[in-house]
């Protein structure tokens, strides 16, 4: 056991845990941030996607000991039910969820894209979202939601 100091959604946290504990477990079990989900545990599905210094990372593959001073962001940091963030609202507007298990990861993956590439092409959205799987089959709505959020951020075409 060691103590790890993490910055999550702008707030500092200190966690006592083993160095090989996946960041996902720390977020869910210690910090009670349950947006990110455990899907495959092998970096194959993306439902655990969070941001590390703005880059999308599958948190099931991140040992807590490698995080260091990097800023962690989860879907909870984007907004809540009363004041959803732009991407969250776009996912609601497009009804881009069936069971919803993959959505927190989808939104964080999309956040990484839009922060770096505010006006992505459809091909860029497709390529960027490729690591994240949805087994209900809402991919087309998810792509539309990301497009919608990009348009809103670009000055509210819709």
């Amino acid at each position: 056991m060691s103590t790890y100091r993490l910055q999550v959604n702008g707030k500092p946290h200190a966690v006592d845990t083993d160095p090989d504990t996946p960041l996902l477990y720390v977020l869910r079990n210690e910090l009670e941030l349950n947006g990110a989900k455990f899907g495959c545990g092998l970096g194959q599905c993306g439902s655990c996607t969070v941001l590390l210094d703005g880059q999308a990372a599958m948190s099931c593959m991140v040992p807590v000991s490698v995080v260091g001073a990097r800023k962690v962001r989860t879907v909870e940091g984007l907004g809540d039910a009363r004041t959803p963030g732009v991407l969250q609202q776009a996912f609601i507007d497009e009804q881009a969820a069936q069971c919803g298990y993959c959505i927190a990861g989808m939104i964080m993956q999309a956040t990484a894209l839009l922060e770096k590439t505010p006006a992505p092409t459809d091909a860029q959205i497709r390529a960027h979202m490729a690591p994240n799987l949805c087994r209900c089959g809402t991919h087309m709505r998810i792509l539309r939601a990301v497009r919608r959020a990009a348009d809103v951020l670009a000055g509210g075409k819709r």
Partner: protein
Amino acid sequence: MDHSRRKRHIGWWLLLAAAIVLTGIAFAIMWRPALAPQSAIPSFDQARIERGANLAHLGMCASCHTPDLSRPFAGGKPMETPFGTVHSTNITPDRDTGIGAWSLDAFTRAMREGVARDGHLLYPAFPYNHYVRMTQADIDDLYAYFMTRPAIAAPARDNAMTFPFGFRPLVGFWNVLYLDDAPWQPDPRQSAEWNRGAYLADAVAHCAACHTPRTKLGGPDLTRQLDGGEAEDWYAPALNRNSPSPLPWTRAQLHTYLRTGMAEDHAVAGGPMQDVVMHLAQANQADVAALAAWTHSHLVQAPARTTPAQTPGPLPPPTAIDPDLPRMQLGYALYANSCARCHDVGRAPSSGTALPLQKAIALYDPDPRSLIHIVDDGIMPPDGEPGRWMPGFKAILDDGQASALAAYLRKYGAGQPAWPELDQQVRKARTP
């Protein structure tokens, strides 16, 4: 007095004559005439077009000429070379921006000599130094295939060459050095299949363009055929006795690998090789088998190697004798916590088998570039293609961590001597 003046005159005349001769030679090397545009695109019978399609797959034309799948063969892919950035061109039969005005003669000249219809010299990023040895029948078929593709208007993108390489006629001197127009000759001691593979590998698939190292002038180093080169900053492994593969390739594995990018328990294609596989999968499978037969005949020259034992469970942590202990311990921890759940012997993830660490060929390469790209970006099949999926770790590992992991894998996974300048290579690969 008079006499010496006349002598001086003769000297000047000789100098002038030499200058004229040299200018003539330079002109002959650097200048090619335009060929007349054809007035209309001829028609072709279906069998020719289909043979041409197979050759286009075997030559992986789309790999460079189709960066955008919705616009087949419209060109525009940037290629970084030591001499600047070259863009692939539009080879659809569009009359103004493609090759619709090119007669068969103009197409043949481009394939064999690297000269565009209007006479400008093409950069050897287009591997005409291989296509020069294609049979005329194959060039005819390829022409039939391209002339029957949908025409797309797409003007060539401007290249960004470093001085003085923007002056295309200089390519003429490269051609003097590297364009060997001797026709391809079969080896009568080998089987028909081997010879078919040898022809396809050299004249069509241009394997050596990546797998043979290049000289400072960007030409193939013919003293080191198939000795390992590079492609888009990946190490393209040696296919000869210097093959880095820790286990010998069988011919069956190689055939499967070339068709699918996966040889069970042996190798997974990454980087530019994924594109090669994607195209070979669509080619005539007897031709791919021939390519495998030929390639395998070179790979079997690699001496048998003793590979590190395939240990179940995580590798033992480094002992205190290692002077690089803290770094190796970090690398070990990263391996055990991030890589081992898929790559350890005895653990197969649900979506398919990852290579056990000791079999991963990239650990045995003479330089770490391919490993760094795999760790950073994972292995992702081209859009819409099936294949193994490995997540990338660029967002997870900082430079020092990635470097420690690579150093650990090299030493304790492959049992190979450390790569020189590993830290610099990691930083370089990560510089946008």
